[in-house]
């Protein structure tokens, strides 16, 4: 709705000038007051900027801001997929502190530089300020180096064939897509469709540690739990915890959804409480796990209508959580509300009644609560406010990233959405 009204104003704007040729350089989209209209002012997303980029975006990541810096995030990287030629691109928000003529905030993002990427970009992570690690559908893991002086990207290191299949009987190797990476400089952990886990260290040619056949199915994502421990999710609904101190190919712990082995596609760990983990599944469910106890999720929240591709706790404000899905929606989950007079459990947002979230009960289910975190079991505080952040849903939102008050997502409709006023 909002996009369309903006589009309208663009026509009138152009018709005033009467000539498109003298038109404005950049294209800007402002989506105003979305959240304000749909929820009760909390996490109202004031402005979303959309830009169509002529390639389907598979991953988006903010560049981390230098420690101690108070600057908002302004540079991000995106990866494309399913193009004849894919690329990793670095963007900068064209913000020079000025307001545009119509009083809006000039937040359009401009391409800084890009570099060809062989195969679909399956995952992207910043290793540090300058280095970006990319996972490829060809099984290759690449570190790209950004040169800020001349705004170029170059390949700094490459592990070709990090993930591969071995055909039956013969020693023929076929590349397998690398599906996920996680970095903790100088270490990089990768997982793939081959069920293999690799531990790389920057500047080492070979993998430091490889766990072959770590999983019988596809590993979809990986994250660090505590320093030598990682956590993977797979396509049969299991979370596995691996401890690199232990030898052998066995995980130290397996947690799983019961029943239907619904594939899990994404995982994120609570930034402060390392035992709290959120995962998203093929059925769009959000699961919260406490890895210290039990082998089943603490709570299951009915969320999206299709695959949940990514879930992220807000890094500095972890009562907020963000999810995106194949159904084309991007949601903001706010568990920080402590307002007692709000009686309804969840606020309905948007035009779609699907925004209601039901804590569906499974055998172990305890109502989640929010006061200290996502695990508390006090039903009186059972309140999560959900806001849908994108106006019209169409194609899949493949990736999102959040840093400070800045949120970023990329879609199959070849658009990148950015907002820098998440909590305003």
């Amino acid at each position: 709705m909002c996009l369309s009204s903006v589009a309208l104003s663009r026509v009138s704007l152009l018709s005033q000038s009467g000539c498109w040729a003298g038109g404005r350089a950049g294209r800007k989209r402002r989506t105003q007051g979305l959240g304000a209209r749909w929820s009760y002012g909390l996490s109202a997303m004031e402005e979303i900027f959309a830009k169509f980029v002529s390639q389907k975006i598979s991953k988006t990541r903010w560049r981390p801001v230098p420690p101690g810096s108070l600057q908002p995030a302004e540079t991000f990287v995106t990866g494309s997929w399913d193009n004849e030629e894919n690329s990793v691109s670095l963007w900068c928000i064209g913000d020079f502190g000025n307001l545009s003529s119509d009083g809006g905030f000039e937040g359009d993002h401009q391409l800084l530089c890009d570099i060809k990427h062989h195969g679909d970009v399956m995952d992207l992570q910043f290793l540090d300020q300058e280095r970006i690690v990319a996972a490829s559908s060809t099984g290759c893991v690449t570190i790209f180096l950004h040169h800020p002086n001349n705004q170029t990207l170059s390949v700094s290191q490459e592990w070709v064939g990090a993930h591969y299949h071995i055909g039956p009987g013969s020693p023929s190797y076929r590349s397998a897509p690398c599906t996920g990476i996680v970095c903790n400089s100088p270490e990089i952990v990768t997982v793939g469709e081959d069920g293999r886990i690799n531990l790389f260290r920057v500047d080492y040619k070979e993998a430091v540690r490889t766990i072959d056949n770590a999983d019988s199915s596809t590993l979809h994502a990986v994250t660090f739990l505590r320093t030598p421990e990682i956590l993977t999710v797979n396509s049969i609904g299991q979370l596995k915890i691996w401890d690199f101190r232990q030898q052998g190919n066995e995980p130290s712990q397996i947690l799983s959804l019961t029943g239907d082995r619904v594939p899990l596609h994404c995982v994120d760990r609570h930034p402060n409480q390392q035992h709290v983990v959120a995962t998203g599944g093929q059925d769009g469910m959000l699961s919260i796990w406490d890895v210290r106890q039990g082998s089943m999720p603490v709570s299951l929240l009915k969320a999206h209508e299709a695959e949940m591709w990514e879930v992220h706790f807000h890094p500095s404000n972890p009562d907020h959580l963000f999810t995106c899905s194949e159904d084309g929606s991007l949601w903001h989950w706010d568990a920080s509300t402590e307002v007692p007079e709000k009686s309804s459990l969840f606020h309905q947002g948007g035009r779609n009644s699907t925004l209601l979230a039901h804590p569906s009960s499974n055998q172990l289910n305890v109502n989640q609560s929010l006061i200290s975190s996502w695990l508390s079991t006090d039903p009186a505080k059972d309140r999560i406010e959900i806001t849908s952040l994108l106006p019209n849903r169409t194609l899949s939102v493949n990736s999102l990233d959040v840093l400070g008050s800045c949120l970023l997502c990329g879609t199959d409709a070849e658009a990148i959405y950015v907002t820098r006023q998440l909590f305003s």
Partner: protein
Amino acid sequence: MLSKPEGPDRQFPSQPGSGAGSFVRREIWGPGVCGGPRTPGACVDQTGNMEELDGEPTLTLIPGVNSKKRQMCFDWGPGEMLVCETLFKKKEKEEKMLGCPFIYIVRKDIDVYSRILRKLFNESHGIFVGLQRIEEESTGKSRKAQLVRVSKNYRSVIRACMEEMHQVAIAAQDPVSGRQYSSQVSILSAMELIWNLCEILFIEVAPAGPLLLHLLDWVRLHVCEMDALSADVLGSENPNKHENFWNLATLFVLQGRLDEARQMLSKEADANPASASMCRVLGDLMRTMPILSPGNTQTLTELELKWQHWHEECERHLQDGTFASNPHLESLCKIMLGDDSALLEQKELLSNWYHFLVTRLLYSHPTVKPIELHFYAQSSLDLFLGGDSSPEPLDNILMAAFEFDIHQVIKECSIALSNWWFVAHLTDLLDHCKLLHSHNLYFGSNMREFLLLEYASGLFAHHSLWQLGVDYFDHCPELGRVYLELHIERIPLNTEQKALKILRICERRQMTEQVRSICKILAMKAVCNNRLGSALSWSIRAKDAAFATLVSDRFLKDYCERGSFSDLDLIDNLGAAMMLSDRLTFLGKYREFHRLYGEKRFADAASLLLSLMTSQIAPRSFWMTLLTDALPLLEQKQVIFSAEQTYELMQCLEDLTIGRTESRDLEGQRLQDDDIETTKVEMLRLALARNLARAIVKEGTLEGS
């Protein structure tokens, strides 16, 4: 011009065998935009798509294909065509010629491959989907307002695209690509022009009065020279001395921007006191011209009366020679009288006949009715061209619109424009305005659906835009589903993630056949990669019992070879999916037996093992393994198999050995194997007998005590 040979770099995927020496070259052609000499053979005809053919189909020559000397063959694909040379042996031997090493992929829709137009396709896809969601119930004003807004959204996307294309055209380094971009800009510009007119006439359906205001806006929006000129003249130090001062003033009058014209006149009056009074008179005439303003409540008749009065006043001034001493002012006055010859003198400034038409209407028929438009349009076109040149496609399209002949507009656009985007979206929008319902084609479905199908098929031929096509097929009630089914199966499954996206598309639409086929492909791939766990998950998802059996057999074979199970994380968690096939059930249960045994729950393990055989779930070939597995249980200190269970085990063993002796008689060899087998059987018999003895004793003791 349209062919874009990209070097021999791509091997055609469906011909794995031809990879070694043959290459594929790609050519692109667009619908309706063709060139080249008419030679038989390697030419592709591009037919009109309406009921009857509009003249000769145009021919496109595929560059690099010499059809005079070679025999050609071709095959149609979805949105593409393969062309290659063949070498049929002729009876009389000719001199040997080297075959052409190329296979050509000839593509239909060039525009799909433009980077900038991709934005148009993606953005308009969202608008299209939104339009389909507009409820049918809403009627009258709100519905019309919605449709007008949708139309404006489409136009704004075209404009945005045009802007960007223009920027790129300016920035282009080499003149060839610069020209290409510029021609794209003019095509986009024409699209917007046509769309805008259709919006005014068909969607807005403006009545007499407001109609002219809309048309004025339309002309102002599309005659672009104005702004550059205005900035140039008014920005100069001394506008009055600028060579284009009067041109600009005239343009303002021609476009009915009389306030701006008056400002220029006052500048002239300041500079030339001699003509000040004349300027004031003309300025007053401009100020007093009656126009219909949106908020005004006056009726058309009132307006007509006032206008008539004003018109007579202008005429009087002209006849009195008020402006005789200043030819510039006099010509302005003549224009304001709607004088055809005075207007035609400004041909250069008017630049096209539809501008001429609108200016003519403004100053001579301000309350023109929609049905009268075509009359004025035709005469304006004739007057403007003056027999010097024949109308171009764009002129024909606009004329058809003025005649309110929607089908003619769409038909002409289909022929003239280089992509299906425009006609598909415009037709769909007009269909939502309920303007097309009577029109059915003699093939397929109606015109809207036909055009949408064509457009979406073009998207599906693209390696990346296929996702957009899905929603278009969804909104083609008659053939969309079939198209989707045929296209979706042909999307290559590079990664599991892509496969999941395709599966989601199919599952949402209950396309079970396609879901099964995709899962089967993935399962087969996994088997080839030795990923049995993955293969099993995929066959479970596809509910493919036969394949699950095959994979289970592989698991059991691996077990027999290695003595341990792989992929326990999956097999231990099969749950209800185990029931998919008998073999899978056996695999799951057999693994459960191992787990029970490992947990030292011997009694449970024993009864499970026995039931696997007695219920006939276990394949006969596996019985010996199962019986061997029973050996350690039989040898345990405590009695595990009851007497009755032991009898059953014995029965199983005897069944098996009888079968074996028969088959041995047939084969009569493999002595060494037999030896091992015989030893095993002997050992089993011994263990069973001992267990039976112990069981009988134990059971007897228990009963007795």
